[in-house]
């Protein structure tokens, strides 16, 4: 397994794309977080803002870049036929997928940590000027930050599973981004509160983002960690489907 891991790590490290995408994820996450924090303000009627969640708005954008990276890691091999060499060298296909998952998760966790820490630092610097405070030592804020790092890693695993099933970069990223962005759009237009609640509980992105909430946690349709658990189930389901397809189909 160590050698499989080493092989996957070498592949990830030596092609130009992944590093650029990870840096892109960090930059875009922090940039949107900065934009959201510096735009935070209230209409004359007053408002309530979740300072931690606002600072972490950029995760909505960063998740797409992380998903692209995960899709490229798998679909790239199908695109240029490397997958056949890979599976000839390592006939245990489950091991290949596991190694890909591990080598992907590490760098994504690291990039996620930098992106989230950067976003919170920016929020800490910008929000007081807008009349809000962000306490970085607050337990809920720390939970939101740590949860967001895990959220990004789980999105990467979800995308890895989906890409292994569809084997096509364009189709894979289309499906993953559809899962992440279309549920929230649908939630916006549904007016029946029960439906809205149910959608927020099952959608991978809205449930997973519950972990970012620090205000009104008890009114959330799903608890912060339970929500992240829902996303983890989606990721596990996608990886399982990917593993089955990888085992059963010709490469």
């Amino acid at each position, binding site marked *: 397994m160590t050698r499989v891991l080493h092989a996957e790590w070498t592949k990830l490290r030596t092609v130009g794309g992944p590093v650029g995408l990870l840096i892109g994820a960090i930059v875009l996450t922090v940039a949107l977080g900065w934009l959201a924090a510096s735009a935070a303000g209230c209409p*004359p*009627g007053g408002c309530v803002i979740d300072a931690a969640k606002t600072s972490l708005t950029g995760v909505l954008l960063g998740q797409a870049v992380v998903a692209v990276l995960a899709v*490229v890691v798998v679909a790239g091999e199908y695109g240029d036929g490397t997958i056949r060499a890979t599976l000839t060298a390592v006939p245990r296909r489950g091991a290949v997928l596991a190694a890909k998952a591990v080598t992907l998760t590490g760098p994504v966790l690291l990039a996620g940590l930098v992106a989230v820490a950067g976003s919170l630092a920016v929020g800490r610097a910008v929000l007081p000027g807008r009349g809000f405070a962000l306490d970085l030592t607050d337990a809920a804020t720390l939970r939101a930050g740590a949860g967001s790092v895990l959220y990004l890693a789980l999105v990467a695993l979800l995308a890895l599973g989906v890409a292994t099933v569809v084997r096509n970069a364009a189709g894979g990223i289309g499906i993953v*981004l559809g899962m992440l962005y279309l549920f929230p759009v*649908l939630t916006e237009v549904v*007016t029946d509160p029960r439906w809205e609640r149910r959608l927020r509980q099952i959608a991978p992105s809205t449930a997973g983002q519950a972990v970012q909430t620090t205000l009104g946690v008890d009114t959330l349709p799903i608890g912060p960690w339970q929500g992240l658990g829902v996303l983890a189930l989606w990721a596990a389901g996608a990886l399982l489907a990917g593993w089955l397809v990888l085992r059963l189909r010709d490469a």
Partner: protein
Amino acid sequence: MSLIRAEWTKFRSVRGWLIATTVGALLIVLFGWLTATGSRSSYQEGPGQPEIIGHPPVPTGPGGEAVKDQFTFAHRTLNGDGTITAHLSPLTASTEGPDGDPRDNDVPAWAKAGLIIKADTTQGSTYAAIMVTGAHGVRMQHNFTEDIAGPTGARWLRLTRSGKTITGYASADGTTWAKIGEVQLSGLPADAQAGLFATSPATATVTQHLGGGGMSTGGRSTATATFDSIATEGVWAGAAWQATSVGDPMDGSTPAVQQSGSTVTVSGSGDIAPDVAGAGVGIERVLIGTFAAATVVAVLGVLFITTEYRRGMIRTTLAARPRRGRVLAAKAVVIGGVAFVAGALGALVTLPVSLSILRENGNYIYHASTATQARIVLGTAAVLAVTAVLALAIGTIVRRSAVAVATVVLLVVLPYLLASAAVLPAGPSQWLLRLTPAAGMAIQQTALEYAQVDFAYSPAFGFFPLSPWGGFAVLCAYAVAALGLAAWLLRRRDA
């Protein structure tokens, strides 16, 4: 032409792409069905009463649009042509908080009182009125949607009926009169109700929970105006003004009209205006699946070019057709056409099916004319066609499928999500929907902004900052710019 046929043959011979196109159209239908099924409206006729699936009656104006029509009316029957003139004291008002607690005596900007002629006292009937407002001077308004500005200082008002023509005048001193407007009321009967009115819209306090949607709460406000020097010409029935609370805004609790000698005091609350913030559903809401279909056509548009690079086909294509710009144009025509047809079919099926489910679930659906419905169906198709072309262009520029698809989705879907889900405050949300390709979705909007109604017209409440065609033009500009860059790069780079 043969180029287009060649590209069409390439598209239709990939079975997966045809399936994906069908899936895109079906996603519009599926999302429409989910939206309709997940939207239910019920109400109670009073505290403790059983819940009824449906909506309280919504008055509609002569144009079919939902309106607010609540005011206190001191009226007499005017038979045929006639004139009424009056002088008004400055408006006074009292406003309440959301819980009915007295708040202050500021006069709301659109509190209004003046002279009105109306077909009858039922809500939504045709009318024309000349009025003094809280902060917008003298106005002449008719049939809810129309509003003509007059001078700011005038206190004397006059309304004249001649056949179907109503003319409004205003004066500062009661001797020199300025004509404010002349309007036609086609549905006005010979016996119309005319007289004095006062009303004042509820104060709206918009609270926004970032990341959790916006909320608008308000309290009732009441405006009071004292009329004197009332003069009438023509055939007026009776001698005393009859008081009616149109739409019963006063709950019958306070005497809304008081006559003492030659002065009449009228107090009222409510509004005579289009209902912009009502609980109804705009028909475009069932077409939210356009975003799902846009994701699918983004994938197809990108694949249409990147597949050629991956398989090396592009060299054959460009060897056969050395004029590379034309190859790209032919691809744009084919992928745009396919997306247009899929979008039009999806929207055509979704609208009637989902609207009937919405109606069964008790929702009030805002009136949309046939022209508006046609604009929405064709607009959905056009947005998808342009999105597909944008994806083709971005695919040609970056050549990497995953990056290209993600770029298109992030440009078209994410800004809408950030703006409409109130992740960002109203100001930045509006800029997002002005500057990004997501502006194109404005082509579906049916909600209209009215200057004579104060409301938070923000994306969180379904209002796009640009007009339907203006927003679509922004999307088109992105597609044209990307296509231009793609054609230039295609000519310059080796395949």
